[in-house]
C-alpha cells in the first residue's frame, strides 16, 4: 500500500536518482578504499605541512622563538610553535602547541645533549628520528619543510641518509644556515671523516628535495665560526643528486654565524622558500601523492 503510494508520487524518480548516484559513487570508492588501505598504508590526507626546525649545537628548542615571532609579525601570519626536547634517555618533553587549524605550524626539535662533535651529531640524528616518528604518528602529515641552523643541517643530512623513509612522507624544501659539512676545515680537499661518510651514503637522500644552503661571510672567508669552504662542501653531498641545490652567500651586517637568523635578508629568504604563503608558491597546493615502493 505504502510502496504503491510512493510509486505514484512523482518524486519517486528523484529518490531513485539519489540511490543510483550513491551506488555509482559507491562502487569505485569501494575499490579505492581497498587499494588505499592496503598499498598506501595510511598516508593520511592531512592538510598540515609543518616546518621542522633543528637548532645548532649548544642551542635549545627555544632557539627559534624570536624567528617565529618575527616571521609572524613581518608577514602578518599566525604560525603556531611546538617545541620538543629529546632527552638522553630517549624521552621527549614538549612545550607550546600546534593550533588545531594551523596548516603550517613550526616544530622545533632540540636535544638535551646539544654538544658539538661528530659522535654527538650522530646521536642527535638518532634522537631526532625518535621525535620525527612521534610527530608523524601524532599528526599524520605527509609532507614538510626542513630548516637547520649550523649543526642542525648536519643532523638533517644524517637523518635523511640513515633513517628517513620517503615512501610515506615527502620533504619539499630544506634550508640550512652556516652548516659546516667539513667542520672547521677551510680547504675542501681536506675532507673530514664526517664529510666522507655523508658523501658515501648520499644515495639515500630523497631525490626530489630542493635545498637552499646559506653561508655567511664577514671577511670573504668565514662567518666568524664556520668557513665558507665548509658550507660549500655540502655540494659534494647534494649536488647532482637532489632536484635543486642552491648556495646563497649572505654578507653585511648580521652575517655572523649566530646572528644570521635575525637578519632581514635571512627572514626574507626563510619566508620565501620555507614558509611560503600560497602566493609565491602556488605549486604547494597540488596534490602531493606518491605510490610507495612495494613492501618486501
Amino acid at each position: 500500500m505504502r510502496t504503491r503510494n510512493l510509486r505514484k508520487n512523482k518524486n519517486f524518480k528523484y529518490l531513485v536518482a539519489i540511490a543510483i548516484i550513491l551506488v555509482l559513487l559507491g562502487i569505485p570508492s569501494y575499490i579505492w578504499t581497498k587499494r588505499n588501505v592496503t598499498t598506501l598504508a595510511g598516508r593520511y590526507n592531512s592538510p598540515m605541512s609543518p616546518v621542522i626546525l633543528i637548532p645548532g649545537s649548544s642551542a635549545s628548542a627555544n632557539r627559534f622563538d624570536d624567528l617565529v615571532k618575527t616571521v609572524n609579525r613581518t608577514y602578518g601570519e599566525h604560525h603556531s610553535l611546538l617545541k620538543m626536547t629529546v632527552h638522553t634517555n630517549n624521552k621527549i618533553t614538549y612545550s607550546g602547541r600546534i593550533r588545531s587549524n594551523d596548516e603550517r605550524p613550526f616544530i622545533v626539535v632540540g636535544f638535551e645533549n646539544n654538544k658539538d662533535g661528530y659522535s654527538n651529531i650522530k646521536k642527535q640524528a638518532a634522537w631526532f628520528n625518535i621525535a620525527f616518528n612521534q610527530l608523524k604518528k601524532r599528526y599524520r602529515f605527509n609532507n614538510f619543510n626542513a630548516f637547520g641552523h649550523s649543526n642542525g643541517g648536519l643532523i638533517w643530512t644524517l637523518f635523511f641518509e640513515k633513517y628517513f623513509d620517503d615512501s610515506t612522507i615527502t620533504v619539499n624544501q630544506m634550508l640550512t644556515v652556516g652548516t659546516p659539512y667539513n667542520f672547521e676545515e677551510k680547504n675542501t680537499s681536506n675532507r673530514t671523516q664526517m664529510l666522507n661518510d655523508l658523501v658515501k651514503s648520499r644515495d639515500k637522500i630523497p631525490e626530489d628535495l630542493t635545498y637552499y644552503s646559506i653561508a655567511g661571510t664577514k671577511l670573504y672567508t668565514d662567518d666568524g665560526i664556520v668557513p665558507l669552504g665548509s658550507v660549500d662542501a655540502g655540494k659534494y653531498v647534494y649536488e647532482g643528486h637532489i632536484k635543486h641545490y642552491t648556495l646563497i652567500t649572505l654578507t653585511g651586517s648580521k652575517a655572523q654565524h649566530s646572528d644570521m637568523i635575525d637578519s632581514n635578508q635571512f627572514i626574507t629568504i626563510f619566508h620565501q622558500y620555507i614558509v611560503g604563503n600560497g602566493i609565491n608558491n602556488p605549486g604547494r597546493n597540488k596534490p602531493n601523492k606518491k605510490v610507495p615502493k612495494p613492501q618486501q
Partner: protein
Amino acid sequence: MKVQFKNKLEERLVKTTLKIQHLLIYRIIQRTLLLIFPFALFGSFIKIIQTVVIGREGFLTDIFPNLNNDFVYRQIDNITNGLYNMSLGWVSVIAIFGAAKYTAKYYNRDDQIAGLVGISSYLIADYSYSKVQPISFHPGMLGMRGLLFAIVLGMFIGWLFKKFSRPAPKLQSNQVPTSVLERAFISWKPLILSLIIAMIFSTFINVTYYSEAPGNFINSLATEYTSHNDWTQLLKTLLFSLYTIIMSFLGWSGTYSALGVEKMDVLSTVNLNYALEKHTAWNAPNPFTSASLYHGFATYGGTGCVLGLIIAILIVARDKDFQTVARWAMVPSIFNISSGVMTGIPVLFNVIFLIPFILAPLANMLMAALAITLHLMPPSVYPVPIGTPGPLIAFIATNGSWQALGFSVLAIVISTCIYIPFVKMAVKVKILDNLGLEEGEA
C-alpha cells in the same frame, strides 16, 4: 483551505511557529534568506566541482585517476574559485544588504541607502589588515559563517536609520534634482554612524581573528582533550556534535565540519595506527570518536542530516516551493553541501526544523554507538577524502565494511522518519501563514 491537526502537540507547535514567524525580526530573516538562496544554490554546485572534482585530496580526485596539474586543470580551478567566491563565498554581504534594506523599508526610511550602507559596513568590519595584498577580507566571514552576524548587523543598521533619519520622501520620476540631493542628506547621520560602528567591529574582529580566541578554545578542547573511558568519549562526541549542530542552525560553524577534514584528534590517530597495524577496524581502542559517530552517521547531506529532510520533502510535502528547493538541492546535498536547503526552505533560524535538525543527528549517533557497542559494526577509523557522500563515509572509513553500509542506510531511514512529521507541520505553517498574509494580518 482548511488545515487539520493530528493532535494537540502538533497544533501548539504550529501555532507557536506561526507566532514567531509573524515577528518583524523573523520576517526580515526569512526575506533575507530567500534573497541569498539563488546565490547559495549556485555556489553549492560550484562547490561540488571545487572540492569534490578538482580539489586537493577531494573525493573524485582520489578515487579516479588524477587530473594533473596542467593548464586545463588550473583554468577550471581559477574559474570555479571566482564563481564560488562571488556566489556562496559572499552571501553574508548579500544578507546584510537584504537585512538592512528590509528593516529600513519597514520603517519607511531610505531602504536603498540603508542596504548599501550595510554592505560597506560589513566589508569594513570584515576588512583584514593584510601586509601582502592591498585590499583583502577575512574570507570565512563573507560566506555562510558570517550570516548571523550579517543579519543582526543589517537589522541594527536599519534600526539606526529609523532612529537618526526621517522618512524618505517618495521619489517621483518628474522630481527636481534638489529634492534628490535632500534625500541623500536625510540619511547622512545613520550612514556615518554605521560606518564608525563597523570600524570598531573591524578592529575588534582583527584582534580576535588573529588570536582566533573562542573557536580555538573549543577546537583545542575537541581535539586535545582525551579520555580513556569510552562513555566520557561518547558524551564528549555527542556534546561537541550538539554544539556544532546548533551553531550551524544559526549560520555559524562549529567544531566539526561537514565538509573537509579537520586535523585528526588524538583518539582517531590512535585508532588509525591500531588499524594499520592490525589490518582491521574491529575493536579499535577508541570506538566513540567524532569520526566514527558524527562524521560517519550524522552529516548526511551536511550538518543536521538534511538529506533526510530532502527525502522527507520529496516523499510527503505537497508544497510546490519545498519540492522545487528539494529537487535542486538534492545533488549538492549528496556531497554534504547543504547551503541550498539551509537558505531555500529555509532551515536556518526556522523554529519548526530546529527539533529534527538536532534530533536526527543525535538519533543516528546513538544508533551508531549502540551498533558499535554490540559489535555489529566496526568504528570508522580510516581517513576519508573530502566531499565523500555522507552515506558512504562510514563505508569507506571502515575499509568497506558491509555492516557499516547497512547501518548507514538505516541512518538515512531514521533521519527521514524523524523529518517527515516536521515537514508536514512546516507545510501547514506555510499554508496558515499565506492565509494570514492574504487577510492582511501581517
